[in-house]
């Protein structure tokens, strides 16, 4: 039982973590909570549905194209909306992000309707381990492997490349990044792009593991914010750890409380963290 919940939590946590990396970097660099992040995630999943199911293209291809299109949407949002609001207070920008979220969600609703949709047809038989104590589908194994690959790639990018280091630097201290001569516009562009790819992937993983509904990403926004706050705003590594912690604790909590209270666990962790250590587990303020 615990093993199964741990596994479910790990998968759910990886999805939150992938979305959370972009959310935390945007928070750190542009100083606002990007409330449309969940709906970008939904967009990625529905684009994958469009290509895989409706146009019958191979899933890996759809995965990449959906990622690129979601990234382009993120860059577009920045160009036509957030950049125009530069210098305004963060509440204004945050509310405009909520507006963007509603527009994206309703466009999805108009295009694909409110019914449940599935990326894969038929029921997949899980592999069974330990006399039935642990069941895992091939799709879930793939999600886990791909999540590890994505997180490793993000780590290598952030720690080894010039652009990645500049991203972390800007998230730490934007004013100093400018004084250092870092091309902040370029960093912002690639931050949106990378966030788009990651959040689209997270959305597709969620769709593969469960199903698609227009609210899927919006519903994940709270756990993603909880992960970002838990790990320390602006810290991508914090978002990964935070995402896994939130995912696993939500699943494990079902041993003690009704499963419908799962989302409350993310809330509780977030509030507790804000009360005890607002800078987060790996917060930048030392």
């Amino acid at each position, binding site marked *: 039982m615990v093993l199964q919940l741990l596994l479910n939590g790990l998968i759910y946590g990886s999805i939150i973590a992938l979305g959370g990396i972009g959310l935390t970097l945007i928070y750190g660099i542009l100083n606002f909570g990007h409330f449309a992040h969940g709906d970008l995630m939904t967009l990625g999943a529905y684009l994958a549905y469009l290509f895989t199911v409706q146009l019958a293209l191979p899933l890996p291809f759809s995965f990449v194209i959906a990622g690129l299109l979601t990234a382009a949407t993120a860059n577009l949002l920045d160009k036509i909306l957030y950049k125009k609001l530069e210098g305004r207070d963060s509440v204004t920008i945050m509310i405009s992000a909520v507006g963007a979220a509603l527009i994206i969600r309703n466009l999805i609703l108009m295009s694909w309707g409110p019914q449940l949709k599935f990326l894969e047809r038929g029921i997949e038989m899980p592999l069974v381990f330990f006399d039935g104590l642990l069941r895992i589908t091939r799709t879930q194994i793939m999600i886990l492997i791909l999540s590890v690959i994505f997180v490793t790639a993000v780590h290598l990018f952030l720690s080894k490349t*010039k652009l990645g*280091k*500049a991203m*972390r*630097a800007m*998230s*730490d*201290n934007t*004013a*100093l*990044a*400018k*004084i*250092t*001569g*870092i*091309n902040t516009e370029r960093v912002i562009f690639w931050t949106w792009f990378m966030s788009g790819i990651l959040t689209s992937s997270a959305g597709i993983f969620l769709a593969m593991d469960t199903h698609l509904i227009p609210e899927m990403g919006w519903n994940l926004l709270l756990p993603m914010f909880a992960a970002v706050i838990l790990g320390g705003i*602006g*810290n991508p590594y914090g978002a990964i750890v935070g995402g896994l912690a939130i995912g696993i604790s939500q699943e494990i909590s079902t041993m003690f409380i009704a499963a419908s209270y799962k989302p409350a666990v993310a809330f509780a962790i977030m509030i507790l963290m804000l009360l005890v250590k607002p800078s987060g587990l*790996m917060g*930048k*303020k*030392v």
Partner: protein
Amino acid sequence: MLEVNNIRAGYGEIEIIHGLSLTVNKGEIVSIVGPNGSGKSTFLKSIFSLVDIMDGQITFQNEILNNAATDEMIKKGLSFVPQTDNIFPSLTVHENLELGGYISRKKLKDRLDLVYDLFPPLLAKKKKRAGTLSGGQRQMVAFGRALIMKPKLLLLDEPTAGLAPMYIQLILDKVKAINETGVTILMVEQNAKKALEMSDRGYVLAAGVKKYEDSGRALLENEEVAQLFLGG
């Protein structure tokens, strides 16, 4: 090397610097001192285009510098160390220094070695997150980041602000050592006496205008300056 001619500068509509001029010659250490709120930091920032310049002209090596882009100024050989928040705390010491070479990575390794030679304590901590260092060491990281591009002129905004007394002299000695490697220095400093002692020349500001301008020694010996600005 640096000529500032009658500039007016401030934030938005608010003018803080009311027509200031200043000269820095190659190889000098020049200090700007004055009471809190005299506009000395704003003045330094205006040289690095960090505040709005409303009027006047800044030239560096005979090229006009007014409101130049940061990377352009770095390429020309200027570097700026802010007073606070002058490191990237979640990055390692080494990454902080590397980012100093963001706009050009030519010979980055040699230049990193030079910085570690100048600040040996940083070598042992190169893999530590900069945010975990002591105040004095953070200041070394901040200097190091600004020195990676081998600037001709280093602008320092209150390098000893907020430091424990034990570090103040250490950091000022480092400023002297940096100058001896051939870097010209223009600094704003609240420890006016100590700053003027080590400076070739100094400027005393009050309320956004220049009150005195002389050699460091002469300013220290000027009774009026001593009484009004150096605490007697």
